[in-house]
């Protein structure tokens, strides 16, 4: 990161190689729109490059990037740029070649799309911070202290947010079957 801060842009690519899939998945889970998620990945690394000098060498890069990405997603959501839009997460272009090799059947895709829409609506019903906490835990399997570090919250707040989020999701998704 220190070299990135000195303007060595060629280091962006290996950094993105390590983190862009994870950041994309988090952004897609949060924003539920493939284009917005791709923009979020791009903006995350633009901001990381510009802020590289402020990165604390004693901390890990992953949570720092996650924090940038989630803050960007929350901003996008609050600006209401994508109100009501639902992604088609099974669209062919959302998958790389390895995923395409295991493409689901058309019936499965339709079911998956309906499920994704219901989940998207349920997630949208959560306040931005609760949604961020739930996404990081459930879609990125981050530990509670990692989530707390990434979002600048206390572990207690993370626990409360998760508890409230999962109950709100239960209200919204109960009765639905995978």
């Amino acid at each position: 990161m220190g070299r990135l801060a000195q303007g060595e842009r060629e280091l962006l690519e290996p950094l993105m190689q390590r983190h862009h899939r994870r950041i994309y998945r988090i952004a897609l889970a949060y924003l539920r729109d493939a284009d917005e998620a791709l923009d979020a990945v791009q903006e995350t690394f633009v901001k990381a490059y510009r802020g590289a000098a402020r990165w604390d060498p004693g901390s890990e890069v992953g949570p720092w990037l996650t924090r940038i990405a989630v803050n960007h997603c929350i901003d996008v959501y609050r600006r209401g740029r994508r109100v009501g839009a639902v992604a088609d997460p099974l669209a062919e272009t959302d998958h790389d070649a390895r995923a395409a090799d295991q493409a689901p059947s058309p019936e499965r895709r339709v079911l998956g799309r309906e499920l994704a829409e219901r989940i998207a609506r349920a997630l949208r019903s959560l306040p931005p911070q609760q949604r961020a906490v739930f996404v990081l835990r459930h879609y990125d399997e981050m530990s509670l202290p990692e989530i707390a570090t990434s979002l600048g919250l206390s572990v207690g707040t993370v626990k409360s947010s998760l508890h409230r989020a999962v109950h709100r999701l239960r209200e919204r998704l109960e009765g639905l079957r995978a």
Partner: protein
Amino acid sequence: MRGAGGWLHERWRRRVSLLALGALEPAERAAALAHLERCPACREELAALRDVLALVDADPVHDAAPPLSAAALAARVRRRLDVSRPSAAARGAMLRPLAAAAAVVLAVWALPAAGPRRPPAAAARPAEVTDETLERLEAHVAREQAVRYLNAAQDVLVTVSVARRDCERKGGRVDVAGEARRSRELLERRPLLELNHARVASARPVLDDVELVLRDVASLEACARARDLAAIQRLLQQRRLLMKIDLMTRELQG
């Protein structure tokens, strides 16, 4: 009224939520499991929460991968950085040729004013600068032209590689009107590129590949069939064109 028992049970409910999410420390987990042994309401709640989380586990987003490679995304990030604020190095690179061009203009402007009475050595100095500078200017212009063209083409092709806007006029089709128009504009600009200069000759094979794909995109209907678009997307992937463009622009920019 909610007494101490109610408050205590609320604490257990929170632990049950975290248990369902697999987010309890081993000691807390053991305590929660012991509580579940004697609390049917919490057992029922745990089962319901696990059902909900199993649904979220089936969300296809878990398996989603970005439609662009890290290399293509890195190229987009670099372009975004260039557009918003050139670095000191980039500003220097842009200013150097301008300074050279200014030197040429000054030299040409100074020649008539100097007149025939000037000593020959003084007149020869601007001519020496001009030859070298002109060569650098030509190379610079050719490189800049090629880089701008490749960047514009990459913008179109990146959009094509992720295009999924539904066409309003025809159901089941994809709106690529903008991409097709921009491809036609780029194809018209292609013959104007100055590719004879040795510094940009290496860009020709990539530009030929770009032209091939742009022709396909330009030939699409405004409301394209998804399979026609998918064929172009496959071609882009097979030829690894976005990556080649990225590498070539970097080579041209030195």
